[in-house]
């Protein structure tokens, strides 16, 4: 058994070493980060998310937006992110303390969404885009998320949140397209994504 014991000690040691270094140490170092209180306007940063936006983040997770969109802005020396106008500064650990799960992402088939709420805060635009991306963004290969919308018969006046769409995607006369709760939550989440403010560890000019 001597050999078996030694082999297992080796397996264990190599593994635990990486666990201590890549999991435990980062957790201890910044796993307990708190919001930063901006003394000037008494605001907590990053701001807490509303219930609807929080639910929207679950819709974001369920439909695999992370496979095409990142939510991280690299510093100027480590990429083109700032040059492309995707943020005012690099993102840091504190930016993500409300994220469960994290949406850092690994792929940029589509643009980075760290600050999409700043770039594009029109709810109507987002609904139209999600319903049929190519209609607002010609040549887009983003999948349509029409299943997050519902077709219904217009009873009396058209609903205020009905989508204004023409062309082949438009519903038959007498019907309208309205967002489901999921779509509303998702858009609330998207417009809440705004990390343009400075943090003490990340001033905006970096």
């Amino acid at each position, binding site marked *: 058994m001597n050999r078996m014991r*030694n082999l297992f000690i*080796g397996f264990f040691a190599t593994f*635990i070493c990486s666990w*201590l*270094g890549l999991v435990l*140490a980062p957790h*201890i170092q910044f796993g307990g980060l708190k919001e930063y209180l901006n003394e000037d306007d008494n605001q907590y940063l990053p701001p807490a998310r509303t219930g609807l936006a929080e639910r929207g983040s679950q819709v974001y997770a369920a439909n695999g937006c992370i496979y095409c969109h990142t939510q991280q802005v690299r510093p100027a020396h480590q990429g083109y992110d700032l040059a492309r106008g995707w943020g005012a500064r690099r993102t840091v650990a504190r930016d993500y303390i409300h994220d469960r799960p994290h949406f850092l992402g690994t792929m940029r088939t589509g643009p980075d969404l760290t600050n999409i709420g700043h770039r594009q805060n029109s709810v109507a635009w987002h609904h139209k885009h999600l319903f049929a991306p190519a209609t607002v963004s010609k040549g887009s290969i983003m999948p349509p998320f029409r299943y997050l919308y519902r077709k219904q018969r217009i009873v009396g006046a058209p609903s205020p949140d009905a989508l204004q769409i023409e062309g082949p995607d438009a519903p038959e006369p007498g019907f309208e397209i309205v967002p489901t709760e999921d779509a509303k939550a998702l858009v609330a989440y998207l417009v809440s994504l705004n990390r343009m403010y400075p943090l003490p560890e990340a001033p905006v000019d970096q």
Partner: protein
Amino acid sequence: MTTAYLILGFSLVAFGAMAVTALVWAARAGQFENFKAGSESIFDSGEPIGEPTDVFPGMKRSLLAGSPTRAMKGPPRP
């Protein structure tokens, strides 16, 4: 922060110590001596060294007779 560095330092030291212990043990236990026997341990009388053990189905084994393995290890076994 300090804790992180402490853990890191500690794990490095602990790890280094383990690595050294393992090496010393391996040397003492003769792990570095019997390499030839070790590498040959997967062969035996049924599938000896010099005997390829895989060909395409239906391929005549005699085809393998021309392979370098054969050439080096002498005539095919009966």
